[in-house]
């Protein structure tokens, strides 16, 4: 028998009241845990994915949408831009490096990104096996895709049109896996990367065999509708050997046909570019420029209202739980005064009684904190397992932050605060008076 056990016995003697208080506190703390985890990982992830990208250039539309679709691969692309216009921009003296992206296809819901080797270098990827693509239709898989689909180097698969699962499949020409990356912990893990040529050619095939398909709403519109015959004829000739020509390693692929890309990732040459380049693009071309850091801080600002609302709710829950614990301790102390007097008669000191009451409050809140953190992680895990493809899926629900220790400290603080008055009244109890009352 010790003070710890006595307090514990008192707690389990009132399971409903104890359970309710623990649960209330746990709910409040769970919300805070979820917010902490999401905020920490989301912002870290967002910054990580956008690192090295100063500006994104794409078709006119919502700048936030442009950033989300071409940096984080969440939203739909805004449309396409002409290749020659893009190439002209790349010759601007303010541009240090430009990485083109061709989006619009997927494999089992994982987005296929047509780009060049610079994109891989941007994220500093490492290969688990195989190597980077050299020929059209060779692809490199992110680690998560390789794990989910079980594809290995040398395996082939057919892509689907659009960026969601279940749309029309391009079955004319299979992609072949040339390399698989080690897990990077960023957006690349969930991407299928290939050359821009691969994306172009797979759509050429569609237009050749299924003419009617070209009129479908298409995020990667192919610019051949008006000069269909010429291009098709030219392609017919080239068809045999163009698949065996090595693709462009950096910059833009050379092509005679009028081609398009979806977006450009731009690195500035100097700070001056940050001022001049966006204005120049937005006013002087049919494209738009958006800064990832600016758009993301705008997004966080928009989400901020919701986050503070949740935080407020969590605080209210915790305060209510604290009050509940206070009332439970205070009420039970009425009947307990006799018990306390008996304990004193058995040799307990005033200080021991003080500790007893505090222990009870602390144990309650500690249980609440542990349960709350567990609940928070479980909520997040549920959330993540519900959403397979989007950015939420990249959040790790079972990472434990140092900040979570503070949750326990806060909870214990609530416990101390709630026990203060009951403990003091236990300390003050006159045993002789209590025992004589009978």
């Amino acid at each position, binding site marked *: *028998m010790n003070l710890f056990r006595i307090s514990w*016995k008192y707690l389990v003697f009132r399971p409903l009241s104890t359970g309710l208080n623990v649960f209330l506190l746990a709910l409040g703390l769970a919300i805070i845990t979820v917010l902490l985890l999401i905020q920490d990982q989301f912002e870290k992830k967002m910054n990580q994915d956008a690192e090295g990208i100063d500006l994104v250039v794409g078709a006119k539309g919502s700048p936030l949408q442009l950033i989300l679709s071409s940096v984080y691969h969440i939203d739909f692309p805004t449309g396409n831009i002409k290749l020659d216009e893009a190439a002209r921009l790349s010759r601007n003296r303010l541009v240090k490096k430009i990485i083109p992206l061709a989006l619009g296809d997927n494999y089992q819901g994982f987005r296929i990104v047509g780009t060049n080797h610079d994109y891989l270098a941007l994220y500093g990827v490492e290969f688990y096996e195989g190597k980077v693509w050299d020929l059209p239709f060779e692809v490199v898989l992110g680690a998560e895709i390789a794990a989910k689909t079980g594809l290995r180097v040398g395996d082939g698969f057919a892509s689907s049109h659009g960026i969601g699962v279940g749309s029309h499949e391009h079955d004319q020409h299979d992609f072949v896996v040339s390399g698989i990356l080690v897990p990077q912990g960023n957006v690349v893990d969930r991407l299928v990367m290939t050359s821009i040529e691969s994306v172009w050619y797979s759509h050429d095939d569609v237009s050749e065999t299924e003419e009617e398909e070209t009129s479908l709403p298409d995020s990667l519109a192919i610019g051949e509708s008006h000069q269909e015959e010429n291009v098709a004829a030219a392609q017919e000739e080239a068809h045999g050997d163009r698949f065996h020509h090595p693709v462009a390693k950096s910059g833009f692929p050379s092509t005679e046909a009028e081609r398009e890309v979806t977006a450009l990732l731009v690195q500035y040459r100097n700070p001056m570019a940050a001022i001049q380049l966006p204005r120049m693009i937005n006013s002087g071309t049919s494209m738009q420029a958006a800064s990832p850091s600016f758009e993301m801080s705008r997004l966080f600002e928009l989400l901020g209202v919701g986050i503070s609302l949740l935080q407020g709710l969590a605080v209210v829950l915790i305060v209510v739980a604290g009050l509940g614990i206070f009332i439970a301790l205070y009420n039970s102390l009425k009947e307990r005064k*006799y*018990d306390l007097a008996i304990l004193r*008669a*058995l040799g307990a000191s*005033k200080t021991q009684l003080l500790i007893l009451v505090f222990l009870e409050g602390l144990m309650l809140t500690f249980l609440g904190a542990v349960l709350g953190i567990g609940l928070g992680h479980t909520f997040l895990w549920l959330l993540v397992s519900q959403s397979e493809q989007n950015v939420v899926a990249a959040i790790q629900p079972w990472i434990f932050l140092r900040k979570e220790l503070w949750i326990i400290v806060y909870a214990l603080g609530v416990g101390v605060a709630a026990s203060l008055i009951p403990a003091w009244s236990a300390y003050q109890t006159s045993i002789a008076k209590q*025992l004589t009352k009978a």
Partner: protein
Amino acid sequence: MLETSALQYAHPGQAVISFPEIKVQAGQSLLVLGKSGSGKTTLLNLLSGLLTPLRGEVVVNGTKLSALSEQAMDLFRGRNIGIVFQKPHLIAALDVRQNLELAHFFGKKKGQEIPRLLAELDIAEKAKASVLTLSEGEAQRVSIARALANSPKLILADEPTSSLDDENAEKVIRLLKTQAAKIGAALVIVTHDQRVKNQISNFIEVKRP
């Protein structure tokens, strides 16, 4: 074992009560008689160190209670004085055995073996029972066992039989007497119960001035 000089005590705003001198040897018993409100329980609180007398001195097993600090008094009481209250007042959150373990814990003393003690008081099979399931007589015996758990030098009982029937009352008094004799403790019973007087002849009387 227990010795007092003429004790005096005054409840706030009330007249001073004087008590006769008390002297009880180890193994001996003493009844404290008196009408309701005559200060019997006050005397018991003075003897157990729960109240401090206005004048006079209580000496238990050679220790002057007034010389002890509050905390030392608590521990001394836990180790050397067993108190049986009018009602059993067991801790409802604990089972029978744990109620006795409390005495060991707070007295910081190994004390008597609990299973044997319970067996002697005829409640061995209730060791694991919740105290809420005990009958009145059983509960009172558990509270006696708790008072005896640390082999005290002085056993104080406050109206221990008032809520018991004849059979249980006799049993409780006999138990107190035999156990006190066995561990060599002085036994002081405060009562106005005729049934108790029949078993213990040695008594003092408390009167209001």
